[in-house]
């Protein structure tokens, strides 16, 4: 199938489980188990469709599709985009496959429920899975919010499922309060982003946020992160997680821990890497701090728990912290490790929760102090639990070792020694917690034997076996999975520009990083030492009383919904404050770009970054065109039209008019390319004016070429030429005089024009002319070309070569 046809199938994985969910209440009238069987079939079909897409996407492509065929116009998206990048696809596949396994498990374990109960369960389960798949595959911010909400509402019903347990309803209340606050955060953040930039598409937003991130954008980022972190269960947004996982039915807890909290992390990754770009905000440092706090707090509290499922829930918080730490490294190994850990966590945590659910379902006991001696009675469950525990512990044949090792590698690459040490400490405590749980629940001899316990049914055996087998498989073939799946996933996050250009144009290739992995003896020794330390810690913890620090932490988790909400909102405020008040980390060294307004004779500018090295202070004015995204390292595009390109406008006073996209908002930017970095200077097109002015400090010298397709510039920069638009190039310091442009009275110009190397692209326009720079700003803004924008709106012809070039590229 062609790429476009494959891409058009992308909504199907969302629609199929929804169809199953709609059919569930009807099927429940026929037979109790039929809804669940239909659900398994629907998820199998979903997995099949996703596997159809898999070869292309995992080969390093991003497939995009616009629903309803509403393709973007001039780079502005009108409809909703669905984009399958490797990270989203692996998450969707995991959701479909593990969801099917959990439903098979439900069929045998909870198959005795009444028909309406089971029908409602199947309906909500499938809606949750459909929402997870939808959120993973969407490329639209508001669509992400809608699927997030669907997942939330389905999770409320599933949490409070066993109505006879009072804790189920209490947990449902707390998850309601916290997730509603989170959805409010996300909604407001999305609304602020739309109001600032007029875009909901990830690609468009990324283009708008490139280089110049204003304070409302940072507040929006803080709100978005606060909301998604609540879903992900990061500290301090985690109040609902332990309660909800304790009270929900076994397979539902597995679904929550294995898949639903991962949705929060995937969304954070999308927003951080895909929208804002990790370098422009201090968000990676925040993720590191939050991740380490979650890892430690989750591990310590897991060690102190008495309830088996609550222990596993706190371990989920810890693992989410480790995921956040992996993401925060920003390197290929770290992010690849985080993606690997995402899948691994889905596998081993589902396994552990299914075991815990089996224990509760058979014995009716939930607390570790009352359990014990189950190894003889439930050997299969014990074995599965041990496999899951060993996987989390990072013991080599199992999958945890690979992903944790990769994250360690990422941390060490970034020279984060303290973070590495803290993460190791969290891992040791986690292993101790699980070891203690295994001992107390399964291996400890119990004085009074359990009564007759039910045998395992085939569905349960199948479910446990599948998950355990996958844990082993992902552990023994790490390089295979790294190459085929995880490296592309990391590439998708590390190259957001490619993702964005795929979303705008339909598909794009991702450069695949090589992520080396081998069983280094140092890591193995560290793992062994960690196991030994954990064993000692677990043994010690069984003997001593609760230390004071743990008692304080437990007292802070006092079960009150108000207090948990207070923690979450305080966390959101802290994130917002940190993002907006901390100095922006040095990323790509943004040269100050200006946004020129029409107000007044002088040009007002706002927003300035750091200067780079350079020459004298000066201002350079250029008319530039709006261009879609590129990314660091790509030769950038600067549309330089020729006279007559805009048929309705004359160039003003010797200036070249560059086509501005028919957009009332920020439409213009200039991309400067030099041998190292690419800058992006958003400029505004004031309404009513078809030109944009960018004010740049001319310490750096802008050389603008009218080279249409880059052939001259690119080799000089050591890159392959692409058939894009002309690039501007930064050269060395120039003598101050501009050419035929007017001299700016107060500002010396450091610009030079460069004769074009190639002819014009459009017939009838004569030879390509140069851009002339440096006009009197007041004159510039009062140029006669200040026609109302409506005259040119919607007419693709008037954008001259720019439109022609774009159409040719499609």
């Amino acid at each position, binding site marked *: 199938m062609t790429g476009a046809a494959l891409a058009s199938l992308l909504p199907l994985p969302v629609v199929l489980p929804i169809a199953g969910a709609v059919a569930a209440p009807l099927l429940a009238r026929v037979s109790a188990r039929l809804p669940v069987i239909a659900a398994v079939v629907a998820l199998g079909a979903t997995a099949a469709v996703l596997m159809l897409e898999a070869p292309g996407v995992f080969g390093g492509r991003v497939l995009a599709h616009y629903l309803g065929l509403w393709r973007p116009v001039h780079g502005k998206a009108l409809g909703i985009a669905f984009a399958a990048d490797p990270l989203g696809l692996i998450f969707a596949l995991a959701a479909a496959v593990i969801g099917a396994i959990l439903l098979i498990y439900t069929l045998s374990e909870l198959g005795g429920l009444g028909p309406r109960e089971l029908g409602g369960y199947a309906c909500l389960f499938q809606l949750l899975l459909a929402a997870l798949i939808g959120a993973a595959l969407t490329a639209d911010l*508001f669509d992400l919010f*809608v699927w997030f*909400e669907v997942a939330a*509402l389905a999770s*409320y*019903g599933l949490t*409070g499922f066993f*109505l006879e347990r*009072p*804790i189920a*309803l*209490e*947990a*449902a*209340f707390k998850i*309601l*309060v916290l997730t*509603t*606050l989170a*959805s*409010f955060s996300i*909604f*407001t953040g*999305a*609304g602020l982003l*739309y*109001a600032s930039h007029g875009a*909901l598409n990830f690609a468009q937003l990324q283009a708008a946020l490139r280089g110049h991130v204003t304070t409302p954008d940072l507040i929006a980022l803080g709100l978005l992160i606060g909301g998604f972190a609540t879903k992900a269960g990061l500290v301090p947004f985690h109040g609902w997680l*332990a*309660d909800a996982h*304790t*009270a929900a039915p076994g397979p539902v807890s597995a679904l929550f821990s294995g898949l639903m909290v991962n949705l929060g992390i995937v969304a954070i990754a999308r927003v951080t890497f895909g929208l804002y770009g990790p370098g422009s905000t201090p968000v990676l440092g925040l993720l590191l701090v939050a991740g380490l706090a979650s890892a430690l707090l989750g591990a310590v*509290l897991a060690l*102190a*728990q008495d309830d088996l499922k*609550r222990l596993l829930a706190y371990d989920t918080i810890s693992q989410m912290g480790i995921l956040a730490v992996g993401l925060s490294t920003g390197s290929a190994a770290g992010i690849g490790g985080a993606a690997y850990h995402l899948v691994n966590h889905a596998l081993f945590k589902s396994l552990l929760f299914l075991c815990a659910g089996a224990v509760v379902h058979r014995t009716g006991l939930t607390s570790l102090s009352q359990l014990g001696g189950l190894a003889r009675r439930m050997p299969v469950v014990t074995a599965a639990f041990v496999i899951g525990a060993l996987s989390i512990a990072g013991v080599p044949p199992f999958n945890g070792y690979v992903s944790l090792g990769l994250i360690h590698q990422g941390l060490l690459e970034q020279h984060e020694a303290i973070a590495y040490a803290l993460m190791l400490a969290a891992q040791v405590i986690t292993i101790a917690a699980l070891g203690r749980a295994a001992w107390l629940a399964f291996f400890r001899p119990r004085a009074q034997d359990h009564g007759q316990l039910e045998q395992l049914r085939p569905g349960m055996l199948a479910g446990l076996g599948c998950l355990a087998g996958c844990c082993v498989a992902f552990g023994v073939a790490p390089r295979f999975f790294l190459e085929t799946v995880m490296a592309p996933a990391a590439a998708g996050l590390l190259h957001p520009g490619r993702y964005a250009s795929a979303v705008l144009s339909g598909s794009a290739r991702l450069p695949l990083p090589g992520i080396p992995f081998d069983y280094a003896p140092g890591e193995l020794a560290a793992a062994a030492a960690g196991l030994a330390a954990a064993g000692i810690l677990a043994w010690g913890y069984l003997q001593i009383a609760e230390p004071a620090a743990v008692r304080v932490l*437990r*007292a802070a*988790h*006092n*079960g*009150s*919904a*108000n207090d948990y*909400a*207070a923690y979450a*909102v305080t966390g959101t405020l802290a994130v917002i404050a940190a993002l907006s008040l901390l100095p922006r980390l040095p990323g790509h060294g943004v040269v100050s770009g200006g946004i020129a307004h029409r107000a007044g004779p002088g040009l007002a500018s706002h927003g300035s970054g750091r200067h780079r090295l350079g020459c004298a202070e000066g201002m350079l004015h250029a008319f530039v065109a709006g261009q879609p995204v590129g990314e660091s390292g790509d030769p950038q595009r600067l549309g330089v039209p020729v006279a007559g390109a805009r048929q309705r406008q004359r160039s003003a006073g010797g200036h070249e008019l560059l086509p501005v996209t028919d957009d009332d908002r920020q439409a213009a930017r200039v991309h400067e390319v030099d041998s190292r970095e690419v800058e992006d200077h958003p400029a505004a097109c004031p309404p009513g004016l078809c030109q944009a002015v960018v004010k740049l400090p001319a310490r750096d010298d802008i050389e603008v070429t009218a080279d249409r397709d880059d052939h001259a510039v690119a080799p000089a920069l050591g890159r392959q030429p692409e058939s894009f638009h002309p690039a501007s190039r930064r050269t060395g310091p120039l003598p101050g005089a501009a050419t035929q442009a007017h001299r700016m009275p107060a500002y010396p110009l450091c610009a030079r024009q460069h004769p074009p190397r190639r002819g014009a692209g459009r017939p009838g326009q004569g030879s390509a002319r140069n851009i002339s720079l440096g006009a009197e700003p007041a004159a510039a803004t009062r140029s006669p070309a200040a026609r109302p924008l*409506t005259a040119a*709106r919607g007419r693709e012809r008037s954008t001259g070569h720019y439109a022609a070039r774009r159409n040719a590229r499609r």
Partner: protein
Amino acid sequence: MILANYLASAALFCIGLYAVLARRNMIKMVMGLSLMEGSTYLFMISLSYRAGSTAPVLLNPPPGQSTRTLAHGNVADPVLQNFCLTAVVIGVAVTAVFLSVVVRIAQHYRTLDSDRVREMRG
């Protein structure tokens, strides 16, 4: 600046958030969340307003304008109104689920005080 709208939205939001954070009665917490949702509706609609614009209803244009000029002219933002519709539906849905959960909690714990409904602690 339609200051009154933004101030009202801010006031609703603050009252709602305060109710969620500081009030123990579960019904009051639900009402607080409803108030917060109401503030977002007002906020979105106010954001969609443009100075001197008319509603994005092209059916009966104001006198002096045709449908075509209205489409190219000054109307409020319909996309944010879509946001708001979605948010209204979400609010209804969440409030329905909330109230049913609160009634069940009241049946079990026989109280509406969230400080008494704290079985899972630590």
